């Protein structure tokens, strides 16, 4: 990279305090022109706060920001864009009911006539191979297309520095590759890129330099091509990365959960219908369902949990008992527990205490309601047990669910279900937005529950998670589930193609039907 003297962006001892937390503590690093610089860290490490200060959304309490060698104050995002700093947010800042063109126009500070803007958008799209229809309403677009709006919006400003906040968490492996092509092209043209992620293999594949944050402090600035994923992960969490411990020579038992030709019409015209979903999960088996978001995962979870009922009672059976027409409450009594993707508002009520949240799913199995009255003592005791067993960072059973961080609430919700010893557990995105430490704890709890003989279904977009956790795997695409395959002999290329909806040679996948699995994983 270029000389230190002409860094495009240089941070010197940046400090930011929030009530009770030091979000950034004397953070210093620099980004050179044309450099792709990774900002790496767990949730809560201070990455987002740091880039918000660079982009002018927040002001630092101490330290200085230098831009091309000159000390600057970025008072607001408009000032950042004027300097040539663009940002693509993790949660897209898009206006759903408005068109692509209006969304882009809103992000532009200069008043450009609509027709001229459209011409410039088309220019940028052809230059970087980004496809978009300017007059479509955003709510009708896929996640990948929405991200393209954000990228085009940023590129129209001819940025000198582009900040990307966890851009790949919603993309297929193929879409990620396309994004990397765009980013490399930008970097070769001299644009610096600040790339926030916790996906280490992406950082190794893409970035020239990585700055690692932990607890608001800069831990290390290193070269990702010489580091290993493991060494960077350990710097990120500040300790040894725990490997999931699976019992040696574990065997799976008889068939527990059988889903046979499950069909479900779409709930709305934006929804996905389920078509002939068929799979079997055995006692002690962890069954993974991979796929890009929006391909029927939510519909499948709702069908399994009992929030939507199937027409055919025999479409879902557990130990031979037909569950298809049973409600969520009846299924819980029959031993089927589920954890939906959305923590606040679906799995838990944010305004309720942890104890009250435990009543919501454990009341029948653990007898927390007597004569129509809630047994608050039993609820508090159970919530306390979950908190201590799963090392949930909370003041106690009286804390509200909404006051917990995402990772801690997820640990609590997983614990609440696991400690009811369900015969079948269905979880969606168990570690989405959860830091590595909490993720490891959740994975270990799932493995232990399986070892105790439960059948587990894990629906996740994170392929790495499924490959390390599951015994068997299938891919969902547009409401259809691929044949099951043993993780031990799964082919990543093939899974990636299935996720993108390209179905491989039927002969090649035909021999991947479920069989008793003997998993021996490192």
């Amino acid at each position: 990279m270029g000389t230190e003297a002409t860094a495009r962006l240089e941070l010197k001892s940046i400090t930011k305090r929030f009530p009770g937390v030091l979000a950034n503590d004397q953070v210093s690093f620099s980004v050179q022109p044309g450099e792709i610089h990774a900002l790496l860290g767990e949730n809560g490490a201070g990455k987002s706060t740091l880039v918000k200060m660079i982009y002018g959304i927040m002001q630092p309490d101490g330290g200085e920001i230098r831009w091309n060698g000159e000390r600057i104050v970025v008072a607001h995002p408009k000032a950042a864009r004027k300097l040539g700093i663009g940002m693509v947010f993790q949660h897209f800042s898009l206006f759903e009911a408005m068109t692509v063109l209006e969304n882009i126009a809103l992000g532009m500070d200069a008043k450009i006539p609509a027709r001229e803007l459209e011409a410039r958008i088309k220019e940028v799209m052809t230059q970087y191979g980004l496809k978009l229809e300017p007059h479509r309403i955003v709510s009708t677009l896929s996640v990948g297309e929405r991200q393209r709006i954000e990228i085009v919006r940023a590129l129209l400003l001819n940025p000198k520095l582009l900040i990307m906040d966890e851009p790949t968490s919603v993309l297929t492996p193929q879409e990620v590759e396309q994004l990397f092509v765009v980013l490399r092209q930008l970097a070769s043209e001299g644009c610096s890129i600040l790339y926030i992620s916790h996906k280490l293999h992406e950082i190794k594949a893409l970035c020239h330099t990585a700055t690692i944050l932990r607890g608001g402090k800069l831990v290390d600035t290193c070269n990702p091509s010489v580091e290993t994923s493991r060494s960077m992960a350990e710097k990120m969490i500040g300790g040894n990365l725990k490997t999931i411990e699976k019992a040696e020579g574990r065997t799976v038992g008889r068939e527990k959960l059988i889903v046979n030709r499950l069909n479900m019409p779409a709930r709305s015209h934006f929804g996905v219908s389920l078509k002939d979903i068929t799979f079997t999960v055995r006692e002690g088996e962890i069954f993974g369902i991979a796929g890009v978001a929006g391909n029927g995962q939510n519909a499948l979870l709702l069908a399994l949990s009992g929030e939507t009922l199937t027409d055919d009672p025999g479409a879902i059976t557990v130990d031979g008992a037909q569950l298809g027409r049973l409600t969520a409450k009846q299924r819980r009594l029959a031993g089927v527990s589920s954890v939906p993707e959305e923590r606040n508002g679906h799995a838990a009520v944010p305004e309720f205490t942890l104890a009250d949240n435990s009543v919501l799913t454990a009341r029948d199995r653990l007898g927390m309601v007597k004569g129509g009255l809630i047994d608050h003592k039993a609820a508090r005791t159970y919530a306390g047990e979950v908190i201590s067993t799963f090392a949930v960072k909370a003041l106690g059973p009286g804390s509200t669910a909404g006051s917990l961080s995402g990772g801690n609430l997820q640990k609590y919700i997983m614990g609440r279900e696991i400690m009811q010893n369900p015969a079948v557990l269905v979880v969606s995105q168990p570690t989405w937005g959860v830091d590595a430490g909490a993720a490891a704890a959740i994975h270990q709890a799932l493995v232990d529950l399986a070892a105790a003989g439960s059948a587990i279904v894990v629906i996740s977009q994170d392929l790495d998670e499924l490959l390390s956790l599951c015994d068997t795997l299938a891919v969902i695409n547009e409401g259809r589930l691929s044949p099951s395959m043993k993780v031990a002999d799964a082919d990543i290329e093939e899974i990636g193609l299935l996720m993108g909806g390209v179905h491989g040679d039927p002969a090649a996948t035909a021999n991947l039907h479920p069989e008793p699995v003997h998993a021996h994983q490192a």
Partner: protein
Amino acid sequence: MSTEFIIAAIVTIVGLTTPILLAALGELVVEKAGVLNLGVEGMMLMGAICGFGVTVSTFNPWLGILGAAAGGALSSMLFAVLVLELNSNQVATGLALTIFGTGLSSLIGLSYTGFIAPVFGSVFPASLANDAYLKVIFGYSPIVYFALIMVPVVAWFLKSTRSGMILRAVGENDLSAHSIGYSVKGVRYAAIAFGGAMAGIGGAYFSMVITPMWAEKMTAGRGWIALALVVFAGWRAGRLLVGAYFFGILMALELYAKASGFSFLPSQFWAAMPYLMTVIALSVISMRDRSGGNAPACLGKPFLPST
């Protein structure tokens, strides 16, 4: 049915429609910015008394209109400060504004009881305004023409101007608008003030045109119809015009039933019709479109940026 009857009916309907059309246009802009102000009735009453007070003090109805707009806008600022600065609940604060506006307008009105203001009627030459036929076009108060002009103006502002686009963006996703760098509070203050001014002018139509004197609670619940009208129109200015006239016709039927003894149903039934239709229209719309259709996504939610 004679021509005279039709002309009289049209003149009546236009008169009944104008106040709710004005108030609803204002509320449309407020709601498009993501704020639900249930204080329309209170702001209309404040506009009614301020407009009347200024008119009898200055003998200038044009100043009276400005006074009405200022009265409505100032009372809406009370709501704006509570909702935008203190993040109070919008529904409760709006209801409080209605109660407050009702009370304060009565208090101010005590010193104006018994006064009669000149009617703020047509400004066209009497030969046009009083002509048996031409009065259907020229026989109205300037407030009527203002209301009609404001329909395309509001529609054009929201759809085609950059400011209108920013206002919609603020109502659609306040956090995103903030992160791009737009002033969510600034936009909302302006929208609430506009809504207050429009409601104030709508209220003044009662005290300056319909009955040129002050009476307590003289807007008689029309503010609530204006609120329902915004939902009924699916947050579109053009449909607001259609909806307002639909309600105007229903209200005219009540007057007709009373006056003509057209009485196979009691006149109370006709009086209840606009309110009944409001309930039915809202139910039908919500059944047809569960997602709320065109409703601004941030409607009624407090704006809480993380900084």
